[in-house]
């Protein structure tokens, strides 16, 4: 067994265990778990069954790519663009929600304490 095969298998197994633990702790959803698991299993397969890599070569060549690494890098870049777009949108949405929550809390507190009711003028304490 070549060194890269051992490294790929070990890394894949460790990451699969970590990902499974995250799922058990409900820190990730089933969809996210499935996507990562597919990646780790592919790594383990490449490490343990080198012929799997040759199968991948045939598949990627059928897709018009010279080697699997071309496929992986090209596809990863596309996925990263999609992830960046999605995360940007999500952050903007959360930012808006956070802003609304802060304003809501400010208005609620203003009606109950410190500033007194907006409708009824409270006497400020002596300086």
């Amino acid at each position, binding site marked *: 067994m070549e060194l890269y095969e051992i490294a790929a298998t070990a890394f894949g197994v460790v990451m699969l265990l970590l990902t499974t633990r995250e799922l058990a702790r409900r820190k990730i959803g089933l969809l996210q778990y499935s996507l990562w698991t597919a990646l780790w299993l592919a790594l383990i397969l490449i490490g343990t069954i080198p012929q799997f890599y040759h199968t991948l070569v045939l598949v990627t060549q059928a897709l018009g790519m010279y080697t699997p690494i071309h496929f992986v890098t090209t596809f990863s870049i596309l996925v990263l663009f999609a992830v960046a777009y999605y995360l940007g949108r999500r952050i903007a949405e959360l930012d808006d929600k956070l*802003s609304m929550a802060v*304003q809501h809390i400010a208005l609620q507190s203003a*009606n109950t304490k*410190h*500033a007194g009711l*907006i409708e009824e*003028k409270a006497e*400020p304490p002596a300086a």
Partner: protein
Amino acid sequence: MRIACIIPAFNEESTIAEMVRGALKHCSTVIVVDDHSQDRTAELSWRSGARVVKHILHLGAGAALSTGFRAALRGGFKIFVTIDGDGQHDPDEIPTALDPILKHEADMVIGSRILQGSRSMPLIKKIGNRILSIATSFVSGTKITDSQSGFRAYRREVLDCAMHRARDYRWASEILVLAAKEGFRIKEVPITAVYRERLKGAGIRDGLKILYSTMKSL
């Protein structure tokens, strides 16, 4: 007439008390929106007679102002005045801004720092303000000389229909464009402005963002 003065403030302990006391001479209520200051802004505002609305996180001038507007709208006020908390504006000029509204000549009044001459305004701000005012005038269809002025007066109806959404300095142009598109009458009156040593406000990056969002609303 119930008039609320709204002062958005962020770390303004050196000037806020003076601004609140000055505004209270002309308005029935002063609402200071403390945008998560790290100093005694909220306490000094309260002690000076303002009602204080506090943000638990720093959101920006636009968000502070919209919180203040919402508080005042809930309070049933009919007219709103806004001034900056940094001491740039003279609260004794509030009647100048209120006058066109009380005389039913305008629905929204902008205190322009340009109309009386803007010698005290730093050059970079003068250039930026000019560019943004031209862009805002073009988009809104109303001639504005100082689109970024925080010294303003509004009738309640304007805020009912044209409340801004921007959290940062973009609010100034956004609300102007919205009000103009709703057909509200906008008027400018000359005001003076004092630029203190500790100069705050919109920078070049903010200016570019304002320009982009203003032109986007075409």
